């Protein structure tokens, strides 16, 4: 099933499927690229940032950015 990264539940895992074109370079340096495995580590209330685990390290993303990344979850 596909969903936005921002819609992932806590501790849910998925594979990055699509990243909005103009965002690709911005998140690549943080380790988020298409085909990467990600796990939702922390979600904040009231449109707060999300923290995802990728390659054993954590990266926080603004919700606006997480909205533009599509992941495939089981």
């Amino acid at each position, binding site marked *: 099933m596909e969903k936005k990264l921002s819609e992932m539940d806590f501790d849910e895992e998925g594979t990055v499927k699509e990243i909005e074109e103009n965002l690709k370079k911005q998140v*690549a340096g943080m*380790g988020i690229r298409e085909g990467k495995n990600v796990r939702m580590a922390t979600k904040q209330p009231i449109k707060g940032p999300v923290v995802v685990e990728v390659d054993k390290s954590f990266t926080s993303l603004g919700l606006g950015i997480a909205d533009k990344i599509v992941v495939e979850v089981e």
Partner: protein
Amino acid sequence: MKILLMGHPNVGKSVFFNRLTGAKVLESNYPGTTVDFMKGWMRLEGEDVELIDVPGAFSLEPKDRAEEVAVKMLAENKDSVIVCVLDASKIERGLYLALEIIEKGYPAVVALNMWDVAEDKNIRIDVEKLERILGVPVVPTTAISGEGFKELVSKIKEAAPVKIEKIIESAGGRESAAVS
């Protein structure tokens, strides 16, 4: 010759700077402690060379002020050797930046810093293989205890520019490089 210390925020560049120059730059365990750059001198085989502590950057596409400074410094010092400081426990991200720097044609040395942390996390890195693929010297270091610094300094002179195509080829071609 100049030496630039580059790497992600919070990988220990300032600790490197202090160790190599004997200076006392503020270090703290917060990313982005160095927003401006620091300059200092170190002795390399009897020669005084300038060492620059560049602010932390995730990539060479500037997104904040610290990254802007980093990219500008790189552009203004075309004749320098880059010491890419990586957090060995988060090696994948660091290599992205290292490859960007190598792709721009700078001679580089890769320092796998926080080697002790990576070992604690049970992350094993085949240094020789990485060195073969990248074609630049790769040295494991633990900056806070000073481990690996002698070797690092001795390898700075071995740094030479490498063509990115060569690295893709050594990694097993474009396809396998993309998945592994």
